[in-house]
């Protein structure tokens, strides 16, 4: 294809409409695929000021540091448990809470408006009598 033809194609609205549609469809397909093939198990949901920042699977050992408007929190996942290993907040309640792993449990760092909540399949290893 010579240069003028290539330019004509690039200038056509139809070309871009098709390209954008394909890109959007690919992304939508990926999102749907991910939704239906989601990892099972438990997750730590990190919320800041009520908005979910990210969701981390408890299955992988990781460490993330979150820089919020009000300060720094390091969230650590180890052996299927999540804890706040470091925080530069005043009261250190989040650090003192220790590790959590059961669905519904949460760690709250009120000074930074940060919460870590465990979600996922309901526990079968805990029986509350």
């Amino acid at each position, binding site marked *: 294809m010579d240069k003028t033809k290539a330019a004509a194609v690039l*200038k056509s609205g139809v070309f871009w409409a098709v390209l954008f549609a394909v*890109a959007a469809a690919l*992304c939508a397909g990926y999102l749907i695929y991910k939704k239906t093939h989601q990892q099972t198990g438990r997750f730590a949901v990190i919320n800041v000021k009520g908005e*979910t920042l990210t969701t981390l699977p408890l299955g992988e050992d990781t460490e993330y540091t*979150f820089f919020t408007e009000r300060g720094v929190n390091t969230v650590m996942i180890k052996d299927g448990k999540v804890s706040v290993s470091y925080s530069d907040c005043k009261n250190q309640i989040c650090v003192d809470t220790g590790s959590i792993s059961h669905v519904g449990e949460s760690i709250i760092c009120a000074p930074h408006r940060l919460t870590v909540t465990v979600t996922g399949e309901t526990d079968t290893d805990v029986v509350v009598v």
Partner: protein
Amino acid sequence: MKIKDMTVTACLAAAALVVFVIEAQLPPLGIPGVKLGLSNALVLMAMAVVGRKHAAMVLFVKIILGNIFAGTPASFLFSLFGGAAAYAVMALTFKFFGRNKMWVTSALGALANNAGQLVAALLIMRTSAVLVYIPMLVIAGLAAGIFTGLAAQFSVRAYDKLRR
């Protein structure tokens, strides 16, 4: 700088600022950071009626004052990265697509805007967890970009008629 260009630029900057501030008050659309970005239509319109340099001024005023009126230091950084990336892409592609395909320019700009904001997010949060938003940002960017581009296109047409 011609007085007329200056006046038009100032009007567009004021309009962009108002749209930006109003949009910042709207509730978020479910996905953090995703919004229409209608103020970009005014930047694009400025590109068409007063040129690229003046459009940069509209963008600059919008980012600085917009974030003073309705923003946080973090949102300022997001605006700056996104706005600069979008402006660069739109300035480069605007002449090529012309006034009748501003929606293509706008969509490419919106994608660049989201890419720039993603870089800002990576810098602020220092976690690759933000990368999972990419597919969502592509879809949102295309939809919002095409919409704001069409809005700018119709506005420019109306402006041209008015000037005649």
